[in-house]
Structures are given as structure tokens and as C-alpha cells.
């Protein structure tokens, strides 16, 4: 038996299922991802640095990370408001709105992309009035920002919702009985207990927006250095057969994504430790 195997167990099948899991995981996920990192070692450090710091790459990374961060901030604020309304208030259509929060998850990204573009194009339902006000959304960085907000909506809502539901009402009642104002209770009692979930949702929305492709490229305009996101630049480099460039950009994005997962895991462990005290 392998090192991983538990002591002799009543239930059968550990060796078989664990073997299958590790084999399949390696073949589909680990080896292909490792291949990417191996491939990146074909480049010298100088070459790698040159690719990553070239004007076009740097702009693409800045656009992806900067706009993702901004969109995640919007999701943090709006997500909190949406969660509050869904959990604490009754209003007509509440259950329906609760259900459609998941639409950005379920809707194929290409569909979201063409739909948002149609909506915000200069003749679109929202694009036309905005254009009249002098605001151009589609085919500008603002469009990218809008698409990133769209795909990030469910993350904050769905991570915070269960925590807000499970929040012990007695805590608020105790605070109220001690004479705290509603504003104080919300900002000093409730929001702090939601903080770990809020940060987790924020990080997940941010990570998703950074890697997003389908829902962004239609509305982005894709002008180099202006509205070209990093994933699109990878695709462009691939179509030019500049594999090294594509690999280098991918490595940067992956490393950032892994750092975010790590941070989220730590955050959740920390939150659990807090909750259990």
C-alpha cells in the first residue's frame, strides 16, 4: 500500500479510487500545467523580463489587473447591498432576484459578451442614453470594466449570504439593548463579522475578472495598449506562433492566481479560527 493509504480500513476501494484520482488529476491538470512552467524555462531570465515588461504586455497586464481590481471593488460594495436586501428585506420578486444572481455563472461567457456589447453599443438600450450624455462604453476600457462587474456579481453575494443568514440575531439585540444606534450596530458589529467573507468574495471576483476572456473581448475594442486584456494578448501571441511570449504572460497570470488562492485559503482558515473562539 502507498504511503497515503490509511490504516487497514473497513471500507474497500481506497487504493483503486485514490489511484484513479491521482492518475486522472496528473494527466488532465498537473502535467499540462507543469508543462507551461517547464516551457517558460526555455526563456532566459532576461528574455522573460523583456517580454513581460514590453510596453504592450505591461499595458495588457495593467488593464487586466487594474480594471479587475476596480470591478471587484464595485462588486464588494454592490454585492453587500444586494446581499443585505436579499437576506434582510422582503420585497416582491425577491426570490427571483436571488436566483438570477447566479446568471453570470451560468451564462456562457460568449453569450454574455455579445449581450453586453449589444446593450452598451452606441445604439444599444443603455449605450444610446449614455452616448447622449457623452459617455462611451462599448469598445473602451469602460466596457471592459462593465463586463468584469457582470461576471463578478455572484462571488461576493454567494460567499457573504450564508454568513449573514447564520449571523446570530442575539448579537444585534444585545448591542441594541446596550444602547447602540443602528448605524453603530451595522458598522461595528455586523460588518466586522462579515469581513472574512467579504474579502473572500472580493478575492474570488478579482481572480475571475483577471482571467476572464469571453465576456470581455466583444465589448473591449481590443486596441493594443488601450483596451487589450492580458488573456487576449496570449491568444494573439499564439496566433502569431510566438509561444514564448504567450507562455511568459501566462506564467505571470498563473502565479498571481495561485497567490490569490493561497491568500483566500489562509483567509478562510483565519476566519474559521475567529468563528470558533
Amino acid at each position, binding site marked *: 500500500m502507498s504511503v497515503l493509504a490509511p490504516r487497514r480500513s473497513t471500507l474497500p476501494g481506497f487504493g483503486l479510487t*485514490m489511484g484513479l484520482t491521482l492518475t486522472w488529476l496528473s494527466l488532465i491538470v*498537473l502535467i499540462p500545467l507543469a508543462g507551461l512552467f517547464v516551457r517558460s524555462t526555455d526563456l532566459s531570465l532576461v528574455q522573460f523580463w523583456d517580454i513581460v515588461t514590453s510596453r504592450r504586455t505591461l499595458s495588457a497586464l495593467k488593464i487586466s489587473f487594474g480594471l479587475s481590481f476596480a470591478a471587484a471593488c464595485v462588486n464588494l460594495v454592490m454585492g453587500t447591498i444586494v446581499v443585505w436586501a436579499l437576506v434582510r428585506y422582503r420585497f416582491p420578486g425577491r426570490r427571483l432576484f436571488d436566483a438570477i444572481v447566479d446568471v453570470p455563472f451560468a451564462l*456562457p461567457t460568449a453569450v454574455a459578451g*455579445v449581450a453586453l456589447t449589444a446593450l452598451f453599443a452606441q445604439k444599444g438600450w443603455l449605450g444610446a442614453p449614455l452616448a447622449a450624455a457623452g459617455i462611451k462604453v462599448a469598445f473602451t476600457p469602460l466596457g471592459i470594466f462593465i463586463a468584469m462587474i457582470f461576471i463578478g456579481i455572484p462571488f461576493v453575494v454567494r460567499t457573504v449570504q450564508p454568513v449573514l443568514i447564520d449571523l446570530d440575531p442575539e448579537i444585534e439585540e444585545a448591542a441594541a439593548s446596550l444602547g447602540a444606534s443602528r448605524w453603530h450596530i451595522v458598522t461595528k458589529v455586523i460588518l466586522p463579522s462579515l469581513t472574512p467573507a467579504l474579502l473572500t468574495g472580493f478575492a474570488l471576483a478579482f481572480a475571475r475578472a483577471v482571467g476572464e476572456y469571453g465576456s470581455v473581448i466583444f465589448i473591449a475594442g481590443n486596441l493594443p495598449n488601450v483596451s487589450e486584456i492580458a488573456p487576449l494578448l496570449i491568444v494573439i501571441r499564439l496566433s502569431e506562433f510566438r509561444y514564448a511570449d504567450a507562455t511568459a504572460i501566462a506564467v505571470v497570470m498563473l502565479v498571481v492566481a495561485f497567490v490569490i488562492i493561497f491568500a483566500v485559503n489562509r483567509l478562510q482558515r483565519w476566519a474559521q479560527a475567529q468563528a470558533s473562539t
Partner: protein
Amino acid sequence: MSIEMTLQRTPDTSARSLAESAARRDPRAEPTVVRYAIITLAVGFLSIFVVLPLVVVFVEAFGKGIAAYFSALADPEAWSAIRLTLGVAAVSVGTNLVFGLAAAWAIAKFDFPGKTFLITLIDLPFSVSPVISGLVFVLLFGAQGFFGPWLQAHDLQILFAFPGIALATIFVTFPFVARALIPLMQEQGTQEEEAAISLGASGLQTFFRVTLPNIKWGVLYGVLLCNARAMGEFGAVSVVSGHVRGETNTMPLLVEILYNEYQMVASFAIASLLAMLALITLIAKTILERNIDGDMPHDD
């Protein structure tokens, strides 16, 4: 953690609602003005960012009438995309179902060191950009890839063909079934299986007669979400497909091509099919979540 939809199950808010509406002068209620402002903001935000995009898909699709809609769908290219999408989804769901059941059995029913790390590895595809998910297979199987020369020498085509599209899709949908089952099976524990074994059942009898009936809704849930993502995947598939018309275009890829050719009705007609898939998935998901809650053990 879970980065995808899905794994974040919609919590049920109804229980608290009664208690809340009953207490008028609840110390836990905000002033009416604030309440209305929050509701308006929430509803307005969701309407603009979620409802309108959904509506616009169907309005555009039917913009030139029902006949134009159906003739767009009747196009051979559309049919080829639909067939390819269904085939890719079937392969991805099938393989990830087997993997997910095996992984969930090993992880949920046994104790071993490194379990949390293994779950993190299984989750990995959720945090990888779709484009990179495609790129890794290009680096393996492309002309300049690790296995490229060998594949060419043996006249095997993986990239820009069905196997490549399927592989990329399997990658992005990899965690769905396992992640739907692991928490459910952990919650259910091992007592029923132990009881079955002590009553003389074999491993397979135990799995098929005791475990599987207990997790059937969870399995369906995972399959549903896996399928939705498999059919809708765009970025990863776009990188490995090669966009051979009538051959390697899945439905989402066809949406893009038709859109870029300004064939709006055709593009949105295909998009509307995918949007319907999403809506059906969401409805089924809500129903399944209720059933899964029933399968969760309760203390009584």
C-alpha cells in the same frame, strides 16, 4: 474554496423571513427610507447588469421575426456546432463523472494526510484563466509542443480537432462533480457503508445499493453544472479549436464568428439557445439543492 458558480449553493432565506416580518419594531431593522434605498439599489443593479443582458439576447435573436430565427438555427453550420457541442459535453461529463465519484469516495470516506492539499489541487482549474487552460494543451500537442513532432510523425491530430476541444473542456470542468459530492459524502459519514459491510455486502454492493442512492441528487447536481460549463466554455476551446468552419466550431465559438460577420440574428439565435441552457440549469439547480438538503443527515 470554490471559484465557480455552483459550488456556492444558494442558501435558503425563507426560514428567517416569517420571524422578521412579524416583528415590526425590530431592533434589527433599518429606517424605512434606508430600507427602500437599499432595495432599489439592489434591484436596479441586478436589473441593469443581469436582467437586461438576458433580455437583449432574446430580443436580438427574434429581431427579424420568428422565421429568421428558425432559419438561422436550421443552417448546417449551426447544426454542426450543436452536434460538436453535445459530443464534447458528453465526453467531458462522462469522464469527470467517473473521476468525481472516485475522488469523492477516496476523499470523503477515508482519512489520509494531505487531504486538504488534494482538494486544492482538484480545485485548481477553477482559478486558471480559460485561455491558459487552452494554452497548456497547445504547448503539449501543438506543432512546436512537447508531443507535436511525435504526433505529426504518427499522423495523429489532437489540436484543432475533437480530442483537443474535449481535453480543454475536461480541464475546465474538472472539479465540478467531485466538488458537488465531497461535502455531501463527508456530511453523510461512513456509518451506513460500515453497516452494509458488516451485514455481508461487498464493496460494489455497498456502493451501488447504499452510497449511490444517498448521493444521487448530488451526482445530478455535479453533472448539471459540469454540463452547463462544458457546453458554454469559450476561452479554452477558442484556443485549441482552430475555428475550422463546420468542423471544430462549438456553439459559443459560432456565436463569435457570426457576430464578427455581423450576422446578428444568427449569432443571437445560437446565443439564445445557450442562454436557455443557462436558465434551465439555474432552475434545475434550485430544485436539486432542495433535494440535496433532504439527503443531508439531520440530528434527530
